[in-house]
């Protein structure tokens, strides 16, 4: 042995390297994030680190494993929760209104063998799921009126989508964890413009009604003030209406003939008869 090494050092080094590689590849380490299908001559043989919901991480099948070199091939399949995103697509509601819906689904490959048989690669699987997601979203949401489309979670519509998607996806060894609507948009063009228009008119209407309310309130306040003033006057003047009449007449004369201080009244000529009450002393006492 040693003699051979000494004679053929390069050959032996290459051989040693080869042995090392083969040895290392016979004991693959399975990370927590991957599942592995061991394929022997194209035929699936074993599944390593398969996803099981009940098992917490740390007690899974991850870790060191083995395989027969050259005979067994390992197909790695993701074990984590994966995402499939959908292109925004139009959905027609039952009341014939269009809405652009953008949804995503999260899934997990629970049966790597089935997934490997049906889709071979994860990329294929994603494309297939995308197609299914698109049609399921359109089918389920297309049965709803427009108002329900805005918040499909409320009526449990999304649960329906998830369930029917799950039925389809289970054929690929996939479990749908979650389906959610990311965006609901009005399509560009007429629907968007008419939405803007209706918003605008609604605002203008609101503005008008606010102004009218303001005017109404102002009027009420004024009327209330008038009423309060009248009440105050009545409470005070009502004590002696005759005296009020006299008192107010005096004030009125002053205001009319002299002015109230702010404006000068028109010049007045007064013609008095000696019989006037004011001049009754002027003629001398009769009695």
């Amino acid at each position, binding site marked *: 042995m040693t003699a051979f090494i000494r004679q053929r050092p390069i050959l032996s080094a290459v051989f040693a390297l080869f042995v090392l590689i083969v040895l290392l590849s016979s004991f693959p380490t399975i990370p927590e994030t991957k599942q592995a299908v061991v394929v022997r001559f194209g035929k699936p043989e074993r599944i390593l680190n398969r996803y099981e919901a009940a098992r917490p991480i740390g007690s899974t099948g991850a870790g060191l494993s083995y395989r027969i070199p050259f005979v067994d091939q390992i197909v790695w399949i993701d074990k984590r929760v994966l995402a499939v995103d959908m292109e925004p697509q139009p959905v027609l509601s039952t009341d014939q209104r269009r809405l652009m819906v953008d949804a995503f689904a999260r899934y997990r490959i629970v049966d790597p063998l089935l997934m490997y048989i049906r889709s071979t690669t994860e990329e294929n699987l994603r494309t297939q799921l995308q197609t299914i997601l698109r049609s399921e979203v359109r089918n389920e949401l297309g049965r709803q009126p427009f108002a329900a489309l805005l918040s499909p979670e409320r009526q449990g519509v999304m649960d329906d989508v998830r369930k029917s998607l799950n039925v389809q996806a289970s054929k690929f060894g996939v479990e749908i964890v979650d389906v959610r609507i990311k*965006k609901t948009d009005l399509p560009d063009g007429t629907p968007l413009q008419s939405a803007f228009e209706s918003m605008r008119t609604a605002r203008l209407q609101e503005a008008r009604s606010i102004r009218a309310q303001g005017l109404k309130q102002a009027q009420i306040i004024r009327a209330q003030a008038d009423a*309060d003033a009248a009440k105050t006057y009545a409470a005070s003047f009502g004590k002696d209406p005759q005296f009020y009449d006299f008192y107010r007449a005096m004030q009125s004369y002053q205001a009319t003939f002299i002015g109230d201080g702010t404006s000068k009244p028109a010049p007045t000529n007064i013609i008095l008869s000696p019989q006037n009450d004011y001049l009754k002393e002027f003629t001398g006492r009769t009695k």
Partner: protein
Amino acid sequence: MSTIAGWAGRVRGLFTDTKGPWGPSGSSDEPPSDDHGGGPWGGPASRGTGGRSVAPLDDLLRRGRMRFRGGGGLPGRPNGSLILWAVIGFFAIWLIFTSIHSISPGERGVVTRFGRYSYTLGPGVGLTLPSPVDRVKKVDVESIRTVDLGSQSSEDLMLTGDQNLIDIAYSVRWNVRTPELYSFQLADPDEAIRQVAESAMRAVIAQVSLQDAMGDKRSEIEAQVADRMQRVLTGYRSGIEIQGVAIQQADPPDEVNDAFKEVTAAQQDAKSYVNQANAYALQLTAKAQGEAAAFDKVYEQYRLAPEVTRRRMYYETMEQVLSKVDKTIVEAPGVTPYLPLPEVKKQQQQQQQEAQQ
């Protein structure tokens, strides 16, 4: 160990000997520098110095070749031990670097043994098995990361419950709660957070009216979105904790902004109407109260001596009035008074001119 060292030496020898075992070992093998002195560099070096400088290299080559030919005994003893020490040193450094881990206070170290999750290292210095066996991934758990959604510069329109559109921008703050879940459960957690945030925000906005979304229900919406996101992410077993959602901007779209400004203007108008009315009311009330109080005071005195007060007031008023106006007293009964109307007019004109001047 020594065999490995020997191997290493041999491999080294292999690379030193450029010709190796393939070429014939004759003098034609010698590097051209030996023959031409000046060397391929074409320097002005003399033959003598050139020969001396090449000699050690020549020696080295010869020794290397000797080793392969099995010159006898273990080849190059001192060289072998040096390599041995280098290898030992390398492994020591390897051990130190891959089995002692310093974890800073905000981090946790997720340890995997042959790929399988083993345990989580807390802050401080942690010991693990060396690298191919145990691997440590440091995860930052303390620092709060922020994801911004719906930019403030461009429009990101969302439909509200009353089928209006709102332009919204918000940010999500999150950190890692369970590092092992965060590392192993979710592919692309950052993207997942973005998507879940968008979905949660849309769902909440679709249940409130435009007015609420723009106004005082913001904090309620933020709390609801955070709550929804947390539930979904916990459902994914992502190990992520949502610290909070902050709405940075919730405005009507640019296209209808003028109409919204009109509403604000109307609100101000309405307020000013009410203010004016209030001012009028205050004024009127004060006036009424003043007049009533004045009357009450006078009336109080009047009641004490009604007749005298009445006459006094009458005369005082008449005095004031009649002293300021032109008076004509027609004494004899049956005389028709002649009113000098033109004079009155003249007077008026004069007064007007005075007023103008």
